[in-house]
């Protein structure tokens, strides 16, 4: 029914009113719910402080693992004594890799990917080299840091 002096019929008015609150509540609710179910994301560490003694004295051509966030990292001492730190996660499908001292390469068992002892992807599906970290030795501490990350050590 539409009154002569009214712009809309009662039905249109009610439909707009009820439709309006349904849409308003639903969109607000859905937005809030989406915000809730998407997790607040942590991040990988920028750097890691380890004990120098635990790592520098390992035999050549071996690795020692450290925890980089929730993933493995590898500290590698090559035959010539040079050292490097790499993230132990394959760049293809994120499987954890292992070091093969016999061939001096890192190996990923998931899809048979190989990385040389510089972390370069040399065989199989990995699209890019392993992520490598900066190594800084200060005092008794060994700092492993994301490339280019700035860090401040607490003064001992």
């Amino acid at each position, binding site marked *: 029914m539409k009154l002569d002096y009214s712009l809309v019929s009662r039905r249109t008015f009610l439909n707009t009113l009820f439709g309006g609150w349904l849409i308003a509540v639903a969109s607000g609710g859905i937005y809030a719910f989406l915000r809730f*179910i*998407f*997790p607040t*994301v*942590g*991040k*990988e560490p920028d750097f890691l402080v380890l004990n120098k003694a635990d790592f520098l004295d390992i035999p050549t051509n071996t690795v020692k*693992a450290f*925890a980089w*966030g*929730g*993933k*493995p990292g590898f500290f590698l001492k090559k035959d010539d004594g040079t050292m490097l730190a790499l993230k*132990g996660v*394959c760049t*293809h*499908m*994120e*499987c*954890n*890799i*292992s070091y093969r001292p016999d061939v001096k390469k890192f190996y*990923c*068992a*998931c*899809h048979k990917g190989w990385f040389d002892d510089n972390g370069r*992807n040399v065989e*199989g*599906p*990995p*699209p*890019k080299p392993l992520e490598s970290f900066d190594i800084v030795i200060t005092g008794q501490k060994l700092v492993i840091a994301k490339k280019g990350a700035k860090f401040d050590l607490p003064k001992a």
Partner: protein
Amino acid sequence: MISRRLEGWIGERYDIEGLRRILRAKYVPSHRFEASYFTGGLTLFLLVIQFLTGMGLALYYIPHSEYAHKSIVDIMTKLNMGWFFRSLHHWGAQLTIASLFIHFFANLLLKAYRKPRELLWVTGFIMIAVLVFFGLSGYFLIWDQRAFTAVRVATGGAGSLPLIGGPIKIFLRGGIDVTQETLTRFYAFHVSVLPMISLIIIGLHVLLVQVHGMSVPISQKDREGRPQPFFPNVFYKDLIVWLLGIGVLVTLAVIFPAAIGMKADPMAPAPENIKPEWYFLFLFQTLKLFPGRISVFNGETIAITVISLAVLFVFLVPFLDKRSSAGKPSPVFTYIAVSYLVYFVAMTVIGFLD
């Protein structure tokens, strides 16, 4: 006598005779491809077994990264018949998915998706996604090395989708890594979200089957035999198929009880010769076909995109296959269906032997 009275009692409150009339009026076409009609019923029956065994397992399983693995070992070794019900659930999952794939390919080849059954296709397609995700999430709950790596690869693979990949990966994992957060999420998906979605979608699917009746393949339109009454003729045949299904299931569960590997360690290298569940093998093999880099693009992203487009095509088949919707033979889509089937089987076999 007592059943008569009970029937009378209910009859005064609900029109049972009406239900009987519907059942008596339900007829099923009869032709040389009628065997395909039993694949859906078998899938449904196996799903019911999954629901029942799953409810049992949920009474004992502990969804925490410290205890999950041990709770499964306890189910297998300490509980009365625990090994049996977990094995039923394990093999039931394999058979349900196998049965669903057969149902899917049969209807793809027979073009049961054509007008007016597009919505049956859409709901069935959603059920494939739901069941595969059921498989992945359930498999992860055992929290062993293989499951852990598989879920990292699968969620990472989803992360390779352009644009939407990142948020999907974070959403599935509950963070940047596969952790306890992921276990909590997958548990929630497996025992709450997916069962609810399944009930709704299967309800719609079965309702639509009742509305439209069974689809008769185009080639059989003029060669149909006499339609058979659903009750009891076709229903008894359904029961035979179900009996065979449960026979195979129990045999597998008893002879090959479900295994469990070493407890997952996020720091340990991926186990050697790792392979995903068989229904992921064709994806796994497809990913292997793509090199790491294709000119300036990431090979993985291209692979995942190609796979997604191929899946999207299947989803849209009822809307693309205009000829069969008009009731005419549609050989192009037969060839496409056959090539999908051949590709799926071949890649699964290659992946299995590799």
